[in-house]
């Protein structure tokens, strides 16, 4: 009897622990805060690159909301689909799969405050997993409106 109880409690502990870890991993999966600072790029710095005649221009991909992209986006950036969805991630992978792995790529979203963005970390994870080594993520603290448009940085609209 006591042996069965010990086995059950061990089993429950294992199950509980596994579920807890899985939930935590899921929750952390889109934590933009976990992207190392070394791979972030500030709006100021990106604008300087875009406006410089000498700098290599990145492939810029917006991985958030199409409705927000249509209203305003960085000129020259492409819309792929929300990276919080599997279809969006597939589109992203397809877009970059033929590119050299040292291609300069900048991902951005700006849908909501940085720590709540559901799109940027999955996109970053996907491209890192594909072996891209020159990948930056645009750090947008509040949202694209406040941190890019209202700062007077270049903006385009439409599809």
């Amino acid at each position: 009897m006591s042996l069965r109880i010990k086995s059950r409690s061990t089993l429950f502990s294992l199950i509980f622990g596994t579920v807890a870890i899985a939930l935590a991993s899921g929750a952390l999966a889109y934590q933009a805060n976990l992207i190392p600072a070394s791979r972030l790029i500030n709006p100021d710095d990106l604008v300087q690159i875009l406006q410089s005649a000498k700098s290599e221009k990145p492939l810029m991909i917006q991985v958030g909301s199409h409705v927000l992209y249509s209203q305003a986006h960085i000129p020259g950036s492409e819309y792929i689909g929300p990276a919080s969805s599997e279809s969006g991630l597939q589109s992203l992978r397809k877009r970059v799969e033929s590119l050299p792995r040292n291609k300069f790529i900048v991902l951005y979203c700006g849908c909501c405050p940085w720590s709540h963005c559901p799109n940027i970390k999955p996109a970053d994870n996907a491209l890192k997993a594909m072996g891209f080594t020159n990948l930056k993520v645009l750090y947008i603290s509040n949202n694209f409106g406040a941190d890019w448009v209202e700062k007077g940085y270049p903006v385009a609209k439409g599809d």
Partner: protein
Amino acid sequence: MKKGFLRGLILFAVVAGLCFMTRHRGGPSDARGTSIGEQSLAPDFSLPDLAGQKLDLSSYRGKVVLLDFWATWCDPCREEIPHFVNLQNKYGDRGLQIIGVSMDDGPEPVREFYQRFKMNYPVVMGNAKTGELFGGVLGLPIAFLIGPDGRVSAKHIGATNISVFEKEIVNLLPSKAGLSRPCS
């Protein structure tokens, strides 16, 4: 000589006028849209709700409207909505009408969300044009409080403490006795 001077002056005035006009012509900055500030008349729209019926914002003139731009994938939005449901229950019979404008790409996830969160106010499907009407909805959530006169009373960008909304709503609603709130 006088005629020549006059011609020169007129030419100068025309060129100066053209320079002034073209300096203010739009370009990429058009994407910034018209600013909607407090006391501006809220832009009207006619958008489909989740049942496909058209909802006109102007039909709610006379009520206090909390217009909430949100999306199902937006965490701060999801946190606000249960509080909005409570506010609608609490103040709906006093003249509050909350309207959600979903900025999702399609209605399917919104319908499922609506049921799951037992939302008790209309939700319409917004688009880029709706966002531009309201000065650019370039991040979520954004909420506008519109008074009975149709004028924007407040604009909140980002998640906002529900007590702030409640205080503003109560200030706009007629008092419980049905009398208009006295000017302060």
